[in-house]
């Protein structure tokens, strides 16, 4: 089951696109210094490369922090499960229109191949480039702490890894086109939303909770002592308040004027015996002392065999809302 889901957080998207831009830019300026073409001019290329490299390092520090705080680093734990199936998919299945062998969910954003490649990128390629780059910088800006005698080897490694970066970018951009449609993945990385697989049961649960919260029918729940434990916003609105504290933890009797108390007690008795009530029209006592009419439903809450409370919905009758 697929649902439109918010899978890339704002920071994650900012990080991804900034990093992409910085790397492309570092390539452009780096290979200009390497002598492959003239674009910005050597002096500007050096200044830009040095500035962009510091920016990239700062960005990556933030990104590492984010990965650990959000636990997203787990996305990169390598797995051998389905790795063959995934490889087979890219080699043959994709041509036959076969379905993706693994499912993208909020918890597994990357397929096993992606995991492996991103992990390698993050643990080998990036560190290699950053470390050689920093050694290079410390050669340019000599200090007493780090003294680099000669930078030939460092520069050669730095250049070679830069080539690997280009290869990665080519493959990476191509693989983004293997989603649902060629642009699906890119769009997702821009907006954060993508239609991904969800667990139907889980979805059902989360959805019901949301439905109650958002419903324009009032919802309430009492415990076995007749104390109000929960109400939703629509319920509070019908009682003309927006502060739940006025009712939560209070006996349910405060929702009726003295003349209606007997009827209320009657309903509670019925429900605690195990019966359900529905369609009953009653008059409520609102928070500001005014009165209103609604129909209610009430049914018992079970904990195993024993009844522990009562809940239900109320629908307002006093000022019906016309659809606009």
């Amino acid at each position: 089951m697929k649902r439109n889901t918010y899978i890339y957080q704002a920071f994650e998207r900012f990080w991804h696109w900034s990093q992409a831009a910085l790397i492309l830019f570092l390539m452009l300026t780096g290979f200009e210094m390497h002598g492959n073409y003239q674009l910005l001019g050597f002096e500007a290329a050096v200044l830009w490369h040095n500035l962009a490299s510091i920016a990239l390092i700062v960005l990556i520090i933030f990104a590492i922090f984010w990965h650990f705080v959000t636990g997203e680093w787990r996305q990169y734990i390598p797995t051998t499960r389905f790795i063959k199936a995934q490889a087979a998919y890219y080699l043959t299945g994709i041509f036959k229109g076969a379905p993706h062998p693994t499912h993208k969910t909020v918890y597994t954003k990357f397929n096993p191949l992606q995991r492996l490649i991103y992990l390698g990128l993050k643990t080998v390629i990036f560190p290699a480039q950053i470390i050689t780059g920093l050694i290079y910088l410390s050669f340019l800006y000599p200090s007493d702490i780090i003294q680099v005698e000669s930078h030939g080897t460092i520069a050669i490694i730095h250049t070679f890894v830069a080539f690997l970066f280009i290869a990665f970018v080519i493959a990476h951009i191509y693989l983004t086109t293997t989603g649902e449609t060629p642009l699906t993945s890119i769009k997702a990385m821009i907006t954060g939303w993508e239609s991904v697989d969800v667990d139907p049961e889980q979805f059902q649960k989360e959805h019901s909770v949301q439905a109650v919260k958002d419903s324009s029918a009032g919802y309430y729940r009492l415990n076995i002592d007749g104390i109000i434990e929960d109400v939703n916003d629509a319920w509070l609105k019908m009682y003309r308040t927006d502060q739940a504290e006025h009712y939560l933890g209070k006996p349910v009797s405060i929702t009726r004027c003295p003349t209606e108390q007997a009827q209320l007690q009657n309903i509670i008795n019925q429900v605690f015996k195990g019966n359900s009530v529905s369609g009953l029209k009653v008059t409520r006592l609102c928070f500001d002392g005014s009165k209103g009419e609604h129909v209610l439903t009430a049914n018992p809450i079970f904990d195993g065999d024993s009844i522990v409370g009562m809940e239900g919905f109320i629908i307002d009758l006093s000022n019906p809302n016309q659809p606009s």
Partner: protein
Amino acid sequence: MNLFKNQSTARFWSVLGLFAALLLPWILGYYYIQHIRLNNKAKEVTLIREPSQKKQGPDHSQYSLLQQDFETPEQVTEACLYCHNTTAQEVMQTSHWTWSREYVTDNGDTIQLGKKNILNNFCIGIQSNEPRCTSCHIGYGWKDDGFDFSQERKIDCLVCHDQTDTYKKFPSGAGYPVTEKKTSAGEAFLPPDYRYIAQNIGSPRIENCGACHFVGGGGNNVKHGDIASELKDVTRDVDVHMADDGAGMSCVDCHRTEEHAISGSLYSIASQDTNRIGCSGCHSANPHPNEILNLHSARVDCQTCHIPEYAKVSATKMSWDWSTAGKLNPDSSMVVKKDTMGNIIYHSMKGDFTWAKNVEPEYRWFNGIADHYVLGDPVNPNETLNMNPLQGSYADKRSKIIPVKVHRANIIYDVQNEYLINPHLFGKDSTAFWTHFDWQKAAKAGAEATGLAYSGEYGFIASEMTWPINHMVAPREQSLTCIECHDSNGRLSELTDFYLIGRDRHAMLDRIGIGIILLSLIGVTIHSIIRILSKSNRAQTK
């Protein structure tokens, strides 16, 4: 409906926010580089020390001692020394007088070496040719190896202190001016009016230094390439320091002098890292707004970028082939050929020359110490002989890259003994080459004069001599840009003992890297072609 609309506007704003967050750092970075780093070029030169102010000396025309009719230049010197009674001692310490300095040879001996006895690859050596060469000595009468260096009255004060431009030493007069009118190479020389000159002396001007230093090698700009008579009157384009529309400086503003010891030394003859002048005498150590340029100065001398070319007005001699000298016309007159600019390119007395103007320097590592070819040192005829190898390398931390002029010449050597010969060139005697054009006689006489044996067989060996370039500093706009060195065909393509970004690469790894990129491009292309084809296939079969 309402809900849906809200959600899409929310998304729109969030994506817009993302773009803003992505763009902002780039805009700031652009501003930083364009306006703070690149645009912030130095607008003015800041000096840590101003050029020296000329002192107004006493009016020498008031001194009765100078109001006499001097017969000889020595009498003038005696008059000078009458008041300046310690000056002769000062002058006699200087290499302007001794033409020699202490030099440590390869085997560790300290010897006296200087213009007096060193060889170069222009007119080779002084010994036996004195009267011609010593016309640039600050003395009178050094006509052979018997000159007495302790005679104070033989010091020539006027050549440096004349302010009238009327005092001239005769080119072959062993340091003396003429006593009657003579001409040399078409130029007239008159006996100086010593009374007038002595009453008008002053601190040395460009003209005084230039009288010898502009014409080293026997003509304007022949030797140095960066020191020539045009410096008396140039524009900033040629020399920002000496130009009238530049700093308007004269030689002694940088070559500061104490007790007649003039600072600065040239490594065509100097060897030790002492008494050097650098730009940092007046300029700060960090003159560039771009810190990376300042960092370059650890291994690159200022001159390297700031003197992009030398010999900007008159040409300088680049090569000299002595082996062709001596060809005469059928009527035994001398052959003289000139190029279109008027530079002599062949002369019977000297052989073939090449000249060049606006020359791009060559570059060397230099740590301040130079070796020298010393008379008697062995030579290898199969290799080019380096007459004054500048010491230094990338690995030697004290070394910096400097610009140099390299003068290449075929010069005479003793084939069997395998050492250079100081040929006897000048003189009216029976052996001088410039009179008789006979290398055998000239070699024998020259070898004897230097105390070396001559085997009887001479030949010519390729040599080069390195002249550091320090003058003709160009305006800032003309200094080298990065790419002139950071490039595979750049100016430093011969200094290969270190990795230079932009010039150097690991050819193999570069090829592998490009290979990997090509493979991934090919892979991606094939994959997408199959994808597209199989998709349309599937669409058809459906």
